[in-house]
């Protein structure tokens, strides 16, 4: 090893072992510290959330401060609608762009798009919110669910693009060629063979992307805006769970702040349920794919 005999003075094996042990324990400590916030936040969420959670919390509309019995029904519905709009925008574009990157891998356009997709996914989400405000809210003269959905959709595009590309590239080229050789057109090959084979991975990635944007608050501030009322209209302000949490948490009222914990718990459960579902999809079907792709089950 290059550094064991430094400055003519021989480091003994024992000293090296000790050094290794020290560094190892430091790494253990670092990992523990990394996980500490998770434990703390989970504990606070459970304790704080449990206090306000109840059937009414899911079915009632928000109430003014001091009036008991408020819920987040409109926030849950609003978040789901916003995610639907976002997926309707992010999925077709993200899938198409991902297929493009996977099929034209080494062309200059693909290299550029790949890089720009990374740049896009690194943009602060609040900037996307402002962009959509300028693009939709200002011309139309009102905050709207549509604008909020578009903002979330823009955030989803690069996530789905890169994930689709990665999944499609896992499909062996021989499979693609087998389909082409059978007389499949390029479109049919991509859609029925390649995409179908990569589908579990793409579903997983899409669900993860939905989970990622489900908790986004900043891009909704000036687009969906939020409302204390029930609304599922695309052309009007709409409530969203993250917005409600933000408003409640920063309010001076104790009962609202208590409800923020409940909302946060619901949001976290939603996000983690989506992530869990996403991983389940891949796990159950990836084995089958691997068995085929690896060239046969054991005989």
């Amino acid at each position: 090893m290059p550094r064991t005999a430094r400055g003519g003075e021989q480091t003994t094996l024992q000293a090296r072992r000790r050094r290794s042990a020290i560094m190892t324990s430091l790494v253990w400590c670092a990992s523990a510290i990394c996980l500490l916030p998770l434990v703390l936040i989970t504990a606070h969420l459970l304790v704080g959330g449990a206090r306000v959670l109840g059937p009414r919390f899911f079915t009632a509309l928000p109430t003014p401060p001091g009036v008991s019995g408020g819920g987040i029904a409109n926030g849950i519905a609003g978040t789901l609608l916003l995610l639907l709009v976002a997926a309707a925008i992010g999925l077709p574009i993200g899938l198409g762009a991902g297929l493009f990157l996977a099929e034209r891998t080494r062309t200059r356009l693909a290299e550029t798009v790949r890089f720009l997709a990374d740049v896009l996914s690194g943009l602060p989400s609040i900037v996307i919110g402002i962009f959509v405000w300028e693009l939709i809210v200002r011309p139309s003269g009102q905050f709207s669910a549509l604008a909020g959905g578009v903002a979330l959709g823009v955030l989803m595009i690069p996530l789905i693009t890169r994930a689709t590309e990665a999944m499609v590239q896992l499909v062996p080229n021989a499979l693609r060629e087998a389909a082409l050789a059978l007389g499949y057109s390029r479109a049919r090959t991509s859609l029925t063979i390649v995409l179908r084979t990569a589908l579990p991975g793409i579903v997983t990635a899409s669900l993860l992307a939905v989970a990622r944007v489900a908790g986004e608050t900043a891009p909704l501030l000036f687009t969906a805006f939020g409302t204390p009322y029930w609304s599922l209209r695309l052309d009007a302000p709409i409530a969203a769970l993250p917005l409600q949490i933000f408003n409640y948490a920063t309010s001076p009222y104790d009962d609202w702040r208590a409800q923020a914990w409940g909302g946060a718990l619901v949001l976290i459960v939603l996000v983690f349920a989506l992530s869990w579902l996403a991983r389940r999809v891949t796990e159950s079907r990836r084995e089958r794919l691997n068995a085929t792709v690896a060239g046969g089950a054991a005989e």
Partner: protein
Amino acid sequence: MAAPPIPSFATDQSRARESSRQRGVQSIGDRLYGGWITASALVIPALLLLVAVVIAISAWPAVQSLGWRLLTDTTWDVPHARFGLLPALLGTLASSVLALTLATPLAFGAAIFVSELAPPRLRRPVALLIDGLAAIPSVVYGLWALVVLVPWLRRDVMPFVRDTLALGNVPLFAGPAYGPSLLAAALVLTIMILPFIAAVAREVLQAVPRSQREAALALGATRWEMIRDAVLPNARAGLVGAMILGLGRALGETMAVTMVIGNAHLLPTSLFQPAYTIASLLANQFAEASGPLHVSALMAAAGVLLAVTIVVNGFARWLVRRTEQQR
């Protein structure tokens, strides 16, 4: 065999021209499909361009009327039309760099743990937990920081530093102990970018070829020497990339910071004083901006944030890609 005439086809260099030659016999489905994927791919550069253009146009009035004062003025006074971004810009940089400094050693430690040192049984659970930390929405971090972290800082940490350690006169810890402060923002940012840096760093470390590790172990290296001499040097550029990606995240992070930084237009000179970041400035003022110049100035702020993050992220992606291509 009668020699047939030799058709010369596909002799042109570019594939684009080659495929356009085939278009004559392409089916409608193929054309639709090709159109769909190409158009989708072009949406991404178009979007970026549109974001930049839209923000540049909206910011133009403020840039025109205020010029460099936008960046150098330390006062943000809406009624008097003074829009100086310097405190927010410096606050953004200070909170992010501070968070990066705190998060990097911890995140690298966790990455090394998962990819090199953890007992096999712990690897997956720890990796999953760290990913879980990354999945928590920003607003939830903000809520937790506001309700738990800030009061703890105000009650315990700040008095301890100031009185017990008698550091009250050091400028870094000056000011009244409110709680909402640059320190609170930096801490919550640290927690938020930790899992992100750890995840990227883990991928970078796992990309280091097995043969490198085995070569080091075969030479009689201890576990730590293997990491230090074989793994880390190979992963260096990628690890720097992971840090800078984390920095990009911190720069644009909005909600949690807005909730705990105190939102005061002060130059970030003391950890205990409230401050501002560009993102929280936008979050707080954009919805109720008064007058076109105010909106335009906020757009200029968004433009500055956009420029900073694009440069930082572009550089980081370039670094990460370079290490991955070394494989």
